[in-house]
């Protein structure tokens, strides 16, 4: 057991801020890194110290293993937290940390390796008696054609080396299989440098439910209940909640036990997530995510367990100190991911510079945010800006608080997914808990399918006219209060310098 005193955070945005805050509650000194455009980002301001990375492209910044190791040495760090994404599930990085005598806050390299090989991991999990979807191991094109009938259509082609929803193809019939295989193999090589593919049965309208687990290096494993993550776009989660409105108490218990069994089957250590597809009351394990999930706060709100603190303690070799029967869930939590994407224009990324931010607060609310005035939102990084999390004694209260919080929130400088989220949490089917992975597609029908709302049109027209009026008046404004104006300008300019 080796205590962590100085932690280098090899990430950016809201998750870097989140990890810094966990450090504060453990007396650990948080150390940041930043690419040039992140120089004024909140994680840089909140850390004890921050080191620059050479350029913005991920390979040169938050994926730059060589530079991160140099900084860790120069900063006197004894551990590195990779957050999620970037290097979080990279076995080579975990091994490099270990070789340099640094604690990698996550599973050991061999566990990352095992979980990253989806086919092998699925075999191990199935062998432990956990239901998995019918599927194959890594297959050649010929083997795939032969096996497809047994797997059944519709089926998915997935990359063995894949993740994050990339390189996935749905195939409806045997006619489409050969061309889809060709396409998928090309994508797999391009994205992961690994041409291996496997097949898996595809469920048309499942729910995506996952279970948070914690496992220490001494063999103890507990689960912290499930998260429902069926609101997805392009295989990316957008809204998550816990508990899932789809589970009975019995199903919940069986799912939790299955998650622990799956984690044990892959020899899991640290915080992880076992993902399942739920098809009425049958569930199938699809993979083990060997990292802290974006959506971990809903579990924290419901269980009261600080998952990042748990990660750090486990990484330092401490025993879990938490028995399954000590994990008591209370109330309901929901998370909405606010991203820099324009929901009225096909969720295209919205790039720009954050001008100002208004974040919600109050009872039951938590906002994990990487937003700050002056921060560039660039093509280099993920569009996630902030996570709004609401807790309530009941699901209804949590959703009402969330709806009000989304109304309170505003971001100036880029378009965000806030309008989509406001729509979703008020949608009657969502409110009733009756939704599946196809839910988010209804936004497009809603936006494009309905006639223009006369009330909204009138409000928008008045606003547009007043905006023009205001601008017109400004143009002809006499140049009064010049000295004061200059002072203010200077102040604003000086603020610009720092951000």
């Amino acid at each position, binding site marked *: 057991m080796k205590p962590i005193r100085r932690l280098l955070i090899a990430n950016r945005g809201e998750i870097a801020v989140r990890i810094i805050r966990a450090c504060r509650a453990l007396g650990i000194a948080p150390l940041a890194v930043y690419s040039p455009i992140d120089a004024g980002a909140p994680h840089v301001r909140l850390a004890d110290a921050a080191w620059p990375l050479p350029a913005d492209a991920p390979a040169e910044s938050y994926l730059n293993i060589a530079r991160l190791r140099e900084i860790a040495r120069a900063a006197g760090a004894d551990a590195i937290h990779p957050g999620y994404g970037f290097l979080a599930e990279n076995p080579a990085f975990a091994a490099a940390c270990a070789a340099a005598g640094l604690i990698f806050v996550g599973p050991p390299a061999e566990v990352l390796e095992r979980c990253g090989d989806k086919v092998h991991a699925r075999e191990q999990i199935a062998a432990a008696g956990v239901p998995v979807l019918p599927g194959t191991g890594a297959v050649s094109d010929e083997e795939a054609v032969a096996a497809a009938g047994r797997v059944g259509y519709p089926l998915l082609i997935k990359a063995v080396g894949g993740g994050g929803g990339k390189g996935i193809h749905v195939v409806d019939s045997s006619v489409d299989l050969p061309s889809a295989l060709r396409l998928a193999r090309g994508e797999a090589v391009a994205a992961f440098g690994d041409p291996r593919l496997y097949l898996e049965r595809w469920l048309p309208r499942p729910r995506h439910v996952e279970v948070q687990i914690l496992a220490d290096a001494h063999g103890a494993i507990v689960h912290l209940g499930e998260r429902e993550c069926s609101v997805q776009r392009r295989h990316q989660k957008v809204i998550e909640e816990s508990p899932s409105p789809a589970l009975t108490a019995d199903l919940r218990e069986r799912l939790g036990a299955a998650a622990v069994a799956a984690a044990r089957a892959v020899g899991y250590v640290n915080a992880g997530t076992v993902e399942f597809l739920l098809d009425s009351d049958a569930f199938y394990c699809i993979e083990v995510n060997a990292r802290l999930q974006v959506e971990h706060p809903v579990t924290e709100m419901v269980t009261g367990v600080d998952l990042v603190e748990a990660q750090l303690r486990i990484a330092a070799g401490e025993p879990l100190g938490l028995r399954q029967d000590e994990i008591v869930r209370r109330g309901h939590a929901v998370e909405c991911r606010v991203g820099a994407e324009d929901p009225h224009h096909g969720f295209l990324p919205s790039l720009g510079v954050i001008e100002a931010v*208004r974040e919600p607060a109050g009872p039951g609310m938590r906002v994990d945010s990487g937003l700050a005035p002056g921060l560039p939102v660039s093509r280099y990084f993920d569009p996630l800006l902030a996570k709004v999390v609401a807790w309530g004694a009941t699901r209804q209260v949590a959703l009402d608080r969330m709806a009000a919080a989304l109304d309170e929130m505003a971001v*100036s400088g880029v*378009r965000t997914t806030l*309008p989509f989220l*406001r729509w979703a949490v008020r949608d009657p089917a969502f409110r009733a808990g009756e939704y599946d992975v196809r839910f988010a597609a209804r936004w497009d029908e809603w936006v494009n399918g309905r006639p223009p709302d006369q009330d909204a049109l009138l409000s*928008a027209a*008045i*606003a547009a006219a007043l905006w023009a009026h205001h601008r017109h008046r400004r143009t002809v404004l006499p140049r009064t209060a010049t000295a004061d104006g200059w002072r203010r300008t200077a102040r604003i300019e000086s603020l610009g310098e720092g951000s």
Partner: protein
Amino acid sequence: MKYAVTGAGPDLEVEVLDPPAGPGRLRVRVHGREYDVGWSPALGSTHWWLEWDGRRQMVAIEPEGDGLGVTLAIDHLDLRVAPASPLPRKRREQGGTLQTVEVRAPMPGLLVTVEVRPGQAVGAGATVAVIEAMKMQMELRAPAAGTVREVRATGGREVSAGEVIAVLVPDGGGR
């Protein structure tokens, strides 16, 4: 000040009236009805509080190209806005000459009277016609000094929004 708002559904004319209703409050006439409207900055240069007809909402307005992207809580509209008076819209976009200006009905209503006849010289701001809608009368004025070339409507009949009432040749022949 009158503004023509176009781009989503039927065109609208929004008139901002003087004097304002109070600090941070304006009087706005739309569809012939007058409202006391709250309008104040909410966030950055893009977000505004709009209070209107008993409801307060935050509106984001972002210029994009020639138009404005207007985002309400959930809805988004791509609009264009331009002053509707005293200068009438020039016909450049229609490829016409620049030598005439049109006086158009800013809203649908009853054309009460037309005060000019072809050939008449008018000063800038002279009353060209009077229109009535929602129990209110409004004068249509000459945007510039010039000569009336054509009168296309007569008093006592309904006109639609945007309908040309009269055509003027400004002094100097335009431009």
